[in-house]
């Protein structure tokens, strides 16, 4: 029972309320009440779909109403002109909006927030113009009347109540589908993609295809909603393509809670029933609607459902579900060091396979003549260096010397302007960041890039097999998959010494711990090469020493490490070799001791001789 509450948030009480309503109220409701509730169901489906692109992917699409309109037009035209029934037309009325989304996505989906919003707005405008102009097919601005009612397997569904039940059955099915997709690891991947797209790509998530999946799903749900809508209203009109439908959908998402499946449904019921509840406002209803929208955006940041969760005190159980009793094997539950000590051997054993130990100390990463220019500044100038398997290379240099740029070039965030980047003999220059990550390159960031709203554990778990993560796998594996990887993730957190923090929301972690969690996440991708950007910052001396030992252990498993660090007492004992960058050029290379005492290094970087 508690598990249910934990997973569903307010879904359970909502479901109970819905059942009670269905049994006690519906049979006596007026046709009007039934129709409004049916339309609310249609909008619930629309908003469920919108939750993927606007909620999960975090992209402000203004084309959701357009996809619904296209679904309505396809279904309406097929029904009136060709006599195709609602259910028989579904493959086309859902398929065409998805196809349109696919076509549109190719150029538009990679655009940033406000560009994406404008692009989707313009696409909606073009579709609306085409629908009103193409009179011979669409009926123009007049639309087409006489769309037959919903039907199932050749049986028309005439009464209001059966129509309502059909629509809400589809809402339930859609909600379950949406919930399965977002409540598993894919939901975590979406969270990371939404909050830190660069970090998501760095663990091998193809953020582009994740966004695409969200966009296509949203269009599919919208197509179904449009198809239901046109049969429920009985008339096809360009209004269904208009911006007011989009505003209604956006309002539902915002008022309900954009990241909650229950939010789409609660939002739809509230917003569509609102005119009925606010009857006393009459002509001022739209004015009140504007005020309510403004009020909710300002006063209830997460929307109704998240606010309800907070009020009912369930926010904790959602944000850190990993330690809920019965969810994670007891062995992984957080505990003090003493208890942990007893379990450690078993865990280390479990960790073994994740670290892709590769024999020999071959050259793993080789940079030759790499240059990168930003405007007039040469950030990297003819850089050459080598990282070997099982060895630690320390990278030092004054601020602005190009250290982080070098990491970004290796991980594919910026392409190099010149030179070669080879990983294990393969040229990786010019590949996409997620593709490079999938070849076994993992990294951390100068400021830890964790998904603040997920637990530390889930931040690590999301990287397990992230490369294979997709809608299909999410549907197949569901929650079981999440439980398995959480176990593995827990082991990695322990290995980094951050096991005690597993259940805490990443946003609340001390900076030093956040770095450890980030290293654990990097390890979860089973890297051959690990790139660390100032891993010791924020740790005290004991913790630094501890981290040094743990990193050494990782190297001993065969992983090659490139560590950027200013902290010499930490880096010198750790590194096998060191490279110093200054103004984008390598000015010294060799053993830590040799580099440290190199006069050019001292001049450029240290200013004074090292202690």
């Amino acid at each position, binding site marked *: 029972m508690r598990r249910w509450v934990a997973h569903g948030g307010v879904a359970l009480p909502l479901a109970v309320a819905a059942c009670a309503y269905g049994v006690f109220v519906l049979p006596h409701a007026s046709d009007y009440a039934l129709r409004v509730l049916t339309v609310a169901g249609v909008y619930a489906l629309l908003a469920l779909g919108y939750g993927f692109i606007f909620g999960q992917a975090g992209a*402000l699409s203004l084309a959701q109403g357009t996809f619904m309109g296209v679904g309505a037009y396809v279904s309406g035209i097929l029904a009136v002109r060709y006599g195709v029934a609602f259910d028989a037309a579904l493959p086309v009325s859902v398929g065409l909006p998805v196809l349109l989304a696919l076509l549109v996505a190719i*150029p*538009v989906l990679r*655009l*940033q*927030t*406000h*560009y994406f*919003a*404008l*692009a989707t*707005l*313009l*696409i909606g*405008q*073009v579709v609306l*113009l*085409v629908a009103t*102009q193409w009179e011979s097919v669409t009926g123009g601005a007049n639309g087409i009347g006489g769309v037959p009612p919903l039907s199932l397997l050749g049986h028309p569904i005439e009464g209001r109540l059966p129509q309502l039940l059909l629509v809400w059955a589809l809402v339930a099915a859609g909600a379950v589908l949406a919930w399965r997709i977002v409540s598993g690891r894919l939901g975590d991947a979406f969270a990371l993609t939404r909050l830190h797209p660069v970090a998501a790509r760095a663990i091998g998530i193809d953020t582009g295809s994740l966004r695409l999946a969200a966009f296509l799903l949203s269009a599919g749900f919208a197509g179904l909603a449009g198809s239901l809508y046109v049969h429920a209203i009985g008339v096809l009109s360009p209004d269904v393509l208009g*911006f007011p439908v989009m*505003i209604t959908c*956006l*309002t539902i998402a*915002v008022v309900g809670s954009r990241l909650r499946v229950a939010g789409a449904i609660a939002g739809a019921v509230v917003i569509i029933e609102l005119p009925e509840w606010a009857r006393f406002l009459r*002509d*001022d209803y*739209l*004015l009140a*609607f*504007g*005020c309510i*929208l*403004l009020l909710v*955006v*300002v*006063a209830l*940041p997460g929307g109704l459902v998240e606010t309800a969760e907070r009020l009912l005190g369930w926010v904790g159980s959602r944000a850190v579900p990993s330690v809920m009793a019965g969810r994670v094997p007891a062995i992984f539950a957080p505990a003090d060091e003493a208890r942990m000590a007893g379990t450690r051997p078993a865990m280390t054993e479990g960790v073994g396979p994740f670290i892709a130990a590769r024999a020999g100390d071959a050259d793993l990463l080789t940079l030759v003549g790499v240059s990168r220019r930003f405007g007039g500044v040469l950030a990297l100038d003819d850089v050459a260096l080598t990282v070997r398997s099982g060895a630690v290379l320390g990278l030092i240099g004054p601020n602005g010397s190009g250290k982080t740029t070098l990491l970004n070039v290796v991980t594919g965030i910026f392409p190099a302007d010149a030179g070669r980047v080879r990983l294990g003999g393969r040229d990786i220059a010019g590949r996409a960041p997620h593709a490079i990550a999938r070849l076994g390159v993992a990294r951390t960031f100068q400021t830890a890039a964790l998904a603040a709203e997920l637990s530390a554990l889930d931040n690590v778990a999301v990287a397990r097999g992230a490369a294979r993560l997709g809608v299909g796998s999410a549907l197949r594996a569901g929650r079981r998959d999440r439980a398995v990887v959480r176990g593995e993730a827990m082991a990695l957190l322990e290995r980094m010494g951050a096991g005690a923090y597993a259940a805490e929301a990443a946003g609340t972690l001390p900076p030093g711990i956040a770095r450890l969690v980030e290293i654990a996440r990097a390890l979860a991708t089973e890297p051959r090469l690990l790139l660390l950007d100032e891993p010791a910052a924020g740790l005290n001396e004991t913790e630094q020493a501890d981290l040094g030992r743990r990193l050494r252990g990782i190297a001993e498993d065969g992983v090659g490490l490139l560590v950027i660090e200013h902290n010499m007492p930490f880096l010198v004992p750790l590194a096998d070799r060191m490279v110093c960058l200054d103004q984008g050029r390598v000015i010294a290379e060799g053993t830590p001791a040799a580099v440290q005492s190199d006069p050019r290094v001292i001049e450029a970087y240290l200013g004074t001789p090292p202690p």
Partner: protein
Amino acid sequence: MAIAQLLVEVLALGAAYALVALGFVLILNATGAVNFAQGDLVMAGGFGAVLLADRLHVSGLVLLPALLAGMAVLGVVVALAAYMPLRRRPPEAVFISTIAVGIILQNVANRLFGAEPVATPPLFGAGRVRFAGVDASVQSVAIIGVAALLIAALYTLFTHTQFGRRLRATAYDRDMAMAIGIPVDRMIAGTFAVAAALAGAAGLLLSNTFFVTPSSGSDYMIKAYIAVVIGGWGSIRGAVAGALLIAAFEVLYPSLPLLVPALLWMPSSDAVFSQTTSTIVLDVAVLLILVVRPQGLFGEAARQRP
């Protein structure tokens, strides 16, 4: 339709659009957020001018200062209601809150003024002028003059006053501005005031020729949005250039068959150069620009913000 006459119209329409786009881009720079109610502020300015003209019985030019002041107040109200509480939230939140402000403005206007189109008073008067062989309406020439004056005033404000320099600093880097002691919140409220005043002026200028109804704002909103995107996100000069470009397209595209008579005999030239096709062509062109040159048409200077 002489080319010169068309160009006067392009300039007049473009100058008015530029005022709307400038307000849009100023708010964008100061807050990183899109003000979706910018078009509805144009509408509010139109109705405001009608209201003032009814009370004061003076020409448009005379009531312009009062209108600017009133709109500035409205701008501050919008900032307080729809931006200030959302400062620390992602830009979508402001996008949606300003959509709500737009809905409120439209329905208040509908309640107060009804749905029927009304005209604002002309700046000087009706009639036409001729100079250098070009025949143009007094209103068009006056629009160009007034808009140029406002843009010049804005430029002076930004470059020659303490307030303007602080505004620019706020727009450039909010955190840095706060660190050096600029009252950022007040600066942002000031930006909304300036943006609303510009939109209101555009409402006065445009609604004499094109009338104003409670729903006429959305069109201006999309124009401003497009102008800022093709001009380069966050670029002030780009916004003006983008506005002029849109106006040129809007006036010249449907006139192409007249300028190039050969096109008139092209098959279905009516349909190809119809107003509706013109909107579709503009939309598609902007989409192409977004895809091919997201930094806008005018060079690298523009800062790209997520």
